[in-house]
């Protein structure tokens, strides 16, 4: 489904992403963790063709992302970046409708409207459908963008820090939803998280990055350990199993 082979990005002399390789084939949730500036967003952007790739290659469904027509890729992979500035003033429903663009090219059919309603319901945005985005809280807006990505109805979904702006309750519901998208809809989801505990609670697989390199990649039990987390973040931590849930605590 998604294959990154030795992806590299240079800014000047520094490799901000350094030969990162990653293969995802089955539905599930993969979390990417790592300190600020580790290259998580850059890696995601290269896979999603938002940034040119300097070295290495990326494939989606076996299609090379640098050579495939954008419209073809848009039906296979969707991505939500960290910051989104809109020029147009749109309602929640308008925005989610744009998720259908790869399928409808701007002319929404009844089937498109059904998908939009589905996405609205999935994110429980129904009551806000007619509201303008600039009349929403940061968290509500974040959910609207995720709904748009969901309406795009691609098998691969990349989300860059979707928990930004969300309080703990909404963060938890967002991650439950990501889980449901993988479990019920069979999506291959890659999600960048800065909170290790969300990764360990909701992900099937955790990829840890540091200085542009992938330094650990495996199931939660293998990556969320004191040794790995300390190496990745350069900070002593305690990892404990609390009621069957692995949690990471910092030391004072």
């Amino acid at each position, binding site marked *: 489904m998604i294959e990154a082979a030795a992806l590299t990005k240079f800014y000047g002399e520094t490799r901000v992403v350094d030969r990162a390789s990653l293969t995802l084939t089955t539905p599930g949730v993969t979390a990417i963790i790592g300190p600020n500036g580790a290259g998580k967003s850059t890696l995601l952007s290269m896979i*999603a063709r*938002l940034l040119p790739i300097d070295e290495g290659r990326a494939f989606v469904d076996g299609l090379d992302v640098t050579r495939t027509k954008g419209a073809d890729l848009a039906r296979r992979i969707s991505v939500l970046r960290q910051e989104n500035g809109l020029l147009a003033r749109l309602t929640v429903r308008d925005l989610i409708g744009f998720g259908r663009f790869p399928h409808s090219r701007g002319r929404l059919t009844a089937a498109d409207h059904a998908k939009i309603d589905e996405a609205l319901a999935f994110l429980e945005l129904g*009551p806000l459908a007619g509201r303008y985005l600039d009349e929403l809280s940061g968290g509500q807006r974040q959910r609207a963008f995720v709904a748009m990505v969901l309406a795009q109805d691609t098998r691969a979904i990349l989300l860059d820090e979707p928990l930004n702006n969300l309080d703990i309750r909404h963060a938890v519901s967002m991650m439950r939803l990501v889980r449901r998208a993988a479990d019920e809809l069979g999506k291959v989801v890659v999600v960048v998280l800065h909170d290790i505990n969300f990764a360990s609670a909701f992900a099937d697989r955790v990829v840890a990055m540091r200085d542009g390199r992938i330094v650990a990649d495996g199931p939660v039990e293998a990556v969320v350990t004191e040794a790995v987390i300390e190496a990745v973040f350069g900070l002593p931590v305690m990892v404990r199993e609390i009621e069957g849930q692995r949690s990471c605590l910092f030391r004072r």
Partner: protein
Amino acid sequence: MAEIAGDRLPAAASRNEMRRPARSPRRTLALLALLALFCSALFMTLGAHGNWSFVLPFRAPKLAAMIVVGHAIALSTVVFQTLSGNRILTPSIMGFDTLYALIQTLIVFLAGTTFLAVSDPRLIFAAETVVMILFALGLYGSLLKGGARDLFRLLLVGVILGVLFRSLAGFLQRLIDPNAFVVLQDRLYASFNSIDTELLAIAFVAIGIVTLIFWRLLPLLDVLALGRDIATSLGVDPDRLTRVSLGLVAVLVSVSTALVGPVTFFGLLVASLAVALVGSRRHAETLAAASLIAVICLVGGQTILERVLGFDTALGIVIEFFGGVVFLAIVMRRGLT
């Protein structure tokens, strides 16, 4: 999870109800269309005193020119704002029309009077437009490539380019032989009061084609207004769309500048009014509104100034004044962020 939508604030909801525009964009557009028709009818008939055979052929080309110019300026401005991702920059603020004036001068300078004497003005116009497209793509294409996030830099570059083009044109005009300069002067100092109607037919065709192409690009422009990243993710190539649209904007600016000369703030005025009246949810609506508003301003303004108040030289000044006020208001209210 069940309560996730429960954080909707009742107060915000009711305020939102009040802020929702009372009229639908369709109704607003219909009203604008009626108003534009009304202004045109007034312009054609007011003070004709029954001399139809004299008045109609005299006024019709002028009306047609104002419609073409208004539409060209409105279309080019709204599209350029989408390309640059903000609502302050316009082609004229970025120096597009002074570039066209420079190209006009340059062609006269290089080709000389003999060329002008034997050549069809439409041919010269076509040549100028082609050069204009190339220059616009070269200059502004590279500025907008990769997204135009840095508004300050763009604005500064635009102002500097405008001054540069103007002074280069002024310099060349000093070197041109006086006979050629007379020919050039006619063209350079076209204004709302001395519209160059010779070019009207070709202008109509050019604008028609550009409008048709943009008609097909409307859904893509809607997507581009979501920002480059989302557009890419939805399968629209922002750089390609920007290149194509920039070329078409260059044609529009060529047409309007050839007919009435440079107009700095008018585009901003009509684009801002259009967004205020029908919103920015769909380019089809915003563009239609901007065009109609432009026609209303030009034709209505000209009718009032010329037929009612008896001034016949002031339209350009009045329009630039209001446009300038809108520009200042936008910059003061929102800043450049």
